[in-house]
């Protein structure tokens, strides 16, 4: 018995602090990374991999059915169509993370876009002011939700369902006698959503900066960890990762640049996802979101202002819904009574869930919104290219959706059998 504990003491000096437990199955270098990955796959700890695989399956099928699906033109369309609802879904992710729900994102996006249109077109306010007002309104709605939730403890399902109905009423009232408002095609807002693309050279610069940034931050982090005698990703691995990102993103961007390129609206969406990811993963506020979603009582006992966290989650959600609504209006170049209606709600929530956010709170990442909306829009776009009856269109949508998520199956099943359910 004693000999083993001596082994520990000997290795103490060489092994990084966090790898000293002798039960850890040690692995080194690139090979070790691959083995660890395989281990995680077997253990069902796959992160976003299943969804990505589901996506690849969908893409292959649609491409086989209609070769235009993966054409550059269509992919450019796809990116642009993802942005508005994707941004809304990003807000939904935040609300789901604290274990609540917002059923009213559609209505919020509809109402705020209506207010924006009325101010901009009817009242002749400058575009930026109209947009700002819309966003402030979105913010205010979330704040009210937060107050009602914190003070009365009404379930967020009911609050936001009341919001869904009430705000739709306000939207109809705001649009009033007009019913439908055109946004001028030559306004900056509409051009931004329809015609503004990143110049090819700039898009490559973006890719290069992203790859370089990833490497730089990874390297700095690894150095600090090594200095603190903790295990760290090897420089070789960091280089490999950045190279992968460089090539991967580079190819995608090059392909999109074959036609119109990368839309600024999509860049905005990506930027919001990255910011949200940073906030959720790397700030105290982000941690408190996860804590409240995981165990609100424990978070409260840790001294976190749980009410403030709920309020800010609602505010973030409705604010992002307002941004998404404005962009959706800009893309359609019109606002009407059905703006924000239809399946905006369902799609935004479904995107968050498909991307892996739990409805029970505490689990999910900002990337869920990106992945989920790409899945949903891919299905929708793929079906657009097939000339189907609407009855079959619905059936296929349902089936493909299920298929995309069922790839998770392998992951989850093995996860459960490995005791991580």
């Amino acid at each position, binding site marked *: 018995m004693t000999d083993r504990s001596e082994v520990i003491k000997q290795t103490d000096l060489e092994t990084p602090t*966090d790898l000293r437990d002798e039960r850890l199955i040690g692995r080194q270098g690139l090979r070790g990374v691959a083995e660890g990955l395989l281990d995680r796959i077997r253990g069902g700890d796959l992160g976003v991999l299943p969804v990505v695989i589901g996506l690849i399956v969908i893409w292959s099928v649609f491409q086989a059915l209609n070769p235009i699906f993966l054409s550059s033109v269509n992919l450019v369309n796809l990116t642009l169509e993802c942005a508005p609802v994707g941004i809304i879904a990003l807000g939904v992710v935040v609300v789901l993370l604290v274990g609540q729900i917002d059923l009213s994102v559609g209505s919020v996006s509809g109402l705020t876009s209506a207010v924006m249109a009325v101010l901009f077109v009817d009242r002749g306010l400058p575009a930026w002011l109209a947009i700002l007002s819309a966003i402030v309104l979105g913010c205010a709605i979330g704040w009210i939700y937060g107050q009602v939730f914190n003070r009365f403890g009404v379930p967020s399902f009911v609050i936001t369902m009341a919001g869904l109905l009430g705000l739709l009423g306000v939207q109809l009232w705001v649009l009033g006698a007009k019913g439908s408002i055109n946004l001028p095609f030559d306004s900056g807002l509409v051009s931004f959503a329809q015609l503004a693309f990143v110049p090819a050279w700039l898009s490559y610069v973006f890719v290069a900066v992203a790859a370089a940034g990833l490497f730089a931050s990874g390297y700095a982090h690894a150095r600090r960890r090594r200095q*603190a005698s903790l295990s760290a990703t090897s420089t070789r691995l960091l280089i490999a990762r950045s190279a992968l990102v460089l090539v991967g993103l580079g190819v995608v961007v090059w392909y999109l640049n074959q036609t119109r390129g990368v839309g600024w609206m999509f860049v905005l969406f990506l930027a919001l996802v990255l910011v949200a990811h940073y906030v959720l993963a790397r700030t*105290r*506020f982000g941690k408190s979101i*996860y804590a409240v979603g995981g*165990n609100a009582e*424990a978070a409260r*006992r840790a001294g976190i202002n749980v009410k403030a966290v709920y309020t800010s989650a609602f505010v973030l959600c409705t604010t992002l819904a307002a941004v998404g609504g404005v962009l959706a209006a800009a893309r359609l170049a019109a606002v009407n009574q059905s703006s924000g209606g239809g399946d905006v709600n369902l799609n935004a929530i479904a995107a968050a869930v498909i991307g892996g956010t739990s409805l029970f709170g*505490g689990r999910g990442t900002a990337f869920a919104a990106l992945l989920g909306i790409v899945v949903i829009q891919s299905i929708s776009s793929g079906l657009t290219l097939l000339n189907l009856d609407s009855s079959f269109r619905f059936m296929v949508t349902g089936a493909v959706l299920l298929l995309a998520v069922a790839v998770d199956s392998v992951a989850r099943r093995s996860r459960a059998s490995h*005791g991580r359910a």
Partner: protein
Amino acid sequence: MSILSLRGITKTFGAVAALTGIELDIDSGEVVAIVGDNGAGKSTLVKILSGVHAADSGTISFESAAVDISSPADAHRLGIATVFQDLALCENLNVIENLFLGQEMRALRLDDVAMEVRSWELLRQLSAKIPSVRTPVASLSGGQRQTVAIARSLLADPKVVILDEPTAALGVAQTAEVLNLIERLRDRGLGVIMISHNMADVKAVADKVAVLRLGRNNGTFAVGEVSQEDIVAAITGATDNVVTRRAQSQERLRP
């Protein structure tokens, strides 16, 4: 001078009177053990002190000033750190995240390296056997979780530390470390409240023992002046109880 003193604390849950007129004083540099039967109201008292529940009536004074502890944040502000019996960890977060919950280093750009280093330090100090601090707490063993909860209470610089059955799930080595730790805290002049069902541990580290029985004070003893049997008698409300009977029968069996 007592750092924390309670007068007439009462709390009912529906039809159950969990606490009735509790009085208690804790001095700095003193370890007070609260003992009592299951359901005696010990954890309820702890929750009132740490702002989880509000007392129905009664007053709490902290450093001789009457205070109103209406939320856990209030208790943190006063310098009261608590290890709850149910631990109150977030299962979806990992060990580091749980340790630093609400008091992360660098709010806007978390310093995860420094936090990881500090975590390993704290855990080593408690002899914790945790293979990795980056696994979610959900996958830790019972004792590992308890160690995390104890480590957490030491992070901020508290004036009073409340430990609700801190060693219940701990192994022998970890228990010894925690008892050592409690002694170190006392030596640093903190007030320590410890709840335990283990009379040996109580006798080993406590200066004073307060007994609760069915939600009421049932005597306070200086540890030096009382025998383990007396404490057990105060807990169970009778000198002839299952513990003494069991001890007698064991003695009869083993020569």
